[in-house]
């Protein structure tokens, strides 16, 4: 049961490593607002950590582990009833590797294969803005996808921490500003490159020459790229197949959850209480959308406790942190295997991240007042 906890931490850590890399990369792009040469000058500084052997290994390893854990999580999903942000994050996460592939090929792999090939911002921007604009659209999308995916992950983790009250005020604007400034830098540098291509014939010749060096290895790069793409698609399909298989396996046995206020939900055996709430349209607080971090989905079990899966490490840690009562369970971790269970939601459905940061403030919201009286001000 410790494995879940380790996987969650590993996913978070690798994601943060990748996000640090992307943030540095985007910061470098935004220097394009100053000038192209400034971008080139800052490249070595901002990207220095990733040029060292350790940095390379860390980056490549993080990318592989994060992708693998993402696919594993997808395969292990029990239902499609998830929060909207989870849908967005999942879709963006799946789409990122194929979109990123051509960029990696052009910068990292081509440099290894073609002799004399040099990657610089000037050259890449010339490729994107003039020689092969179709690549640029992929890159623009990938900037958006990667950043939104990463920002969602960081935000949903950080917002639960007490420290968010102090840093939230400037972290949130930064999360939005980074891609905007980077894209503006990309556009400004692009304009400069186009102008230089038109006026500076010598530079133009250099760029074309550099581009021509890729020609001989082009076929190998394309082959490699399509192989990787096919392999990735295969993995995604495999994960989806495992997911579908698990759903089909459990589809026949139904379980039922009875809530306070006379509400009820039913669904496949093996779903968590929170997933059953979502399927049944029962309002249920879930600030971390079922990752077991926030503790807002916790419930008092009033009947059928034997139908639930035993507590795991994640649940123990979080319940201890929010000082839950002895009979409480986390609805997102407690899976229903028996025929039925009766619970009382501990927090009102509109509990927000502050309920995770300061559990004491919400302690007095007793189950009886879990739903506000009719006509209460919105």
């Amino acid at each position, binding site marked *: 049961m410790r494995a879940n906890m380790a996987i969650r931490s590993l996913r978070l850590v690798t994601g943060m490593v990748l996000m640090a890399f992307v943030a540095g990369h985007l910061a470098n792009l935004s220097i394009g607002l100053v000038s192209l040469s400034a971008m080139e000058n800052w490249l070595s500084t901002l990207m220095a950590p990733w040029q060292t052997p350790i940095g390379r290994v860390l980056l490549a390893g993080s990318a592989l582990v994060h992708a693998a854990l993402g696919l594993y999580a997808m395969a292990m999903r029990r239902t499609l009833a998830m929060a909207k942000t989870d849908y967005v994050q999942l879709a963006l996460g799946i789409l990122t590797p194929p979109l990123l592939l051509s960029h990696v090929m052009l910068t990292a792999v081509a440099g290894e294969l073609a002799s004399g090939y040099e990657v610089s911002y000037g050259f890449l921007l010339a490729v994107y803005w003039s020689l092969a604009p179709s690549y640029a659209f992929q890159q623009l999308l990938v900037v958006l996808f990667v950043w939104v995916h990463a920002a969602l992950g960081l935000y949903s983790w950080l917002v639960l921490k007490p420290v968010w009250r102090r840093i939230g005020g400037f972290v949130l604007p930064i999360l939005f500003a980074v891609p905007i400034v980077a*894209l503006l830098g990309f556009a400004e540098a692009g304009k400069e490159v186009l102008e230089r291509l038109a006026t500076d014939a010598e530079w133009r010749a250099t760029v074309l020459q550099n581009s021509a060096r890729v020609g001989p290895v082009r076929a190998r790069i394309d082959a490699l790229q399509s192989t990787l793409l096919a392999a990735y698609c295969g993995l995604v399909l495999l994960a989806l197949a495992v997911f579908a298989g698990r759903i089909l396996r459990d589809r026949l046995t139904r379980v039922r959850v009875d809530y306070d206020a006379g509400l009820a939900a039913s669904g496949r055996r093996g779903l968590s209480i929170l997933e059953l709430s979502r399927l049944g*349209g029962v309002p249920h607080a879930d600030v971390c959308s079922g990752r077991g971090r926030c503790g807002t989905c916790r419930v008092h079990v009033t009947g059928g406790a034997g139908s639930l899966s035993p507590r795991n490490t994640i649940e123990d840690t979080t319940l201890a942190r929010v000082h839950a009562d002895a009979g409480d369970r986390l609805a997102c971790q407690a899976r229903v295997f028996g025929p039925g269970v009766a619970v009382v939601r501990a927090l009102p459905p509109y509990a927000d991240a502050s309920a995770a940061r300061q559990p004491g403030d919400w302690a007095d919201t007793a189950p009886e007042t879990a*739903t506000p009286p009719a006509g209460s001000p919105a």
Partner: protein
Amino acid sequence: MSTGEGMAGMAMTLLEAAKSRVAALGADLAQAPAELHSMLAAASGALYTGAGVRAATYLLILLIVGAGVEWLYWTYAHGPLRALESAPVSSPRHALRVALRRLALLGTGLVLFTFATLAASAAFVWPRGMHEAVVALTLFVLVVRFAWIGVSVVLAPGRAAWRLVPVAQEKAGWLAATLMGAAVALALARFAPNLVEPAAPHGAAMLRLAFATLATALLLVAAFAFIEGPVPSGATGAKRRLPKFPASIVAAAIVLTVFALWLLRSGTAATVAGIVGGVILVQMALRDLVFFFWQDMIDAEAAEAADPPAVDASDPTLLPSIALSTARFLVVLVGLAACALQLNAPLAGMAASGNPLVRLGLDMLGVAALALFTHLVWIVIRTTIDHRLKRIGPYDPHGEANPNARLLTLLPLLRTSAAVLLVVTLALSSLWALGIEITPLLAGAGVVGLAVGFGAQALVRDVIAGIFFLAEDVFRVGEYIESGSTTKGTVERITLRTVALRHHNGPLYFVPYGSLGSVRNNSRDWVIEKFNIPLPIGVDSEKIRKMIKKIGIEMLSDPEVGHMMRMPLKSKLARVDPGVKIFRCKFQTAPGNQFDVRAQAFKRIEAALRAEGINFADGATVVVQPAGAAPG
């Protein structure tokens, strides 16, 4: 003759215009594919250049800015929305309040997104033609998202309790999807062709036609598949409905008419037709739509109708009736305003316009508003009175004297008076509003009123006296009264001037209130009946008193008369006459029952006396001759 020819000529002109329109459409369709093809080739060529990349970059920035502003808003608004969505909905009226709050919360987010996107788009230098496209795209997103908010707030496909219209749960999802499809098609027809218009005018016409046809088809599907008659509610389901013209056919006809007008004439004519058709459709459905919000109360009233009526409960149909009238007027008004806007009528200049026709139209609007107001007052009065009357129940001349009989008399009177008063007031106010001088009319009426008043002094006295008789609850229908004069009888009818009394022998007296004088009402609360029993002088008074008391107690449990009695029969020795002891008996009953009870009492007393061997005192005077005194 000439009119006929003129009409024929007009029809011919219209047909010619339609024919040329169809021909133009055919030409558009024939040329559009090639045109669009070349335009697309040019556009994709332009896209894969530095300018295209720049436009895409800016577009992504706009997306982030708009989404960022909206995200910021939702960090505050998410909690309230969740709280709103998790609260149970108790009635359709509560659902309406919830819907309005959801609309405000969701709509604010959308407005912020739109404003942020549009404002940010102004900050960039776009490649040629791109800014228009971006603005059109933003507006398209606005329209589609707004349509979705509207559909989800009104139809609430996921939660039946939130629904604002009477649509069955299994149909709500599909109806929402169809309406959304139509909204997207209409938005595309509005925004997409404008973008290709400069490069491909024929292609734009084809796109318009294609999207408008798609929207029409979807709306037809919605009309036929989802518009249904009102679902009979469980309480009143057994009642057979009269056949009505199906609303789906009307809706479909309106949709097709609008489409045909748009196709053959112009966008303006189609829009006006669409507004008029919309007003007609809404008016047809308005009763169901409005009453839906009070359906739970109406059902509850129908369910408890079997129970003894609580007179104080107000009529559940009062509020919806008022809302319905107001809504009908507002819908027409909004329709008129929309038509005026569409036809570019100068709304502001109208009020000051000297054109008599415009003035007349405005005056008529004023009169209509007056009529609406009068109608509202009339609805309030009528539904309240009718509901009260219904609760009291019909007058039953053979039953117990109903405590609400006075209301039965007064309420219809009040209703008629209110109607007359309202009509007169409305007529005078309308004349005033239309600019017709009503002062002479009022003065004339005053003079005539004075003259009539003198002539009809007695009449006025009767009417006013009657009002006070009724207000002071002197008598009610069904009560037995005696007036100061010799007239007496049961009150049968109360009118404005007279009261009709049925004498117990049959004749019907019509007594004007003015000559009623003091009234003796024999039917109030209770009566005490007294009668004498003469018994021979030799009986034991105490024994008789106890015997009659016993009879009185027995009579209380008698099935025939026991329930009428207020106090049991009692007696006491009242007088001793020569040879006779007179016992006075009395009892108390509800009014009008004393005669039955008295007969029963006599019967029992007689039987008891016979059992005791006592006779009533006979009339014969016993002369006792003292011993030794010889007659003579």
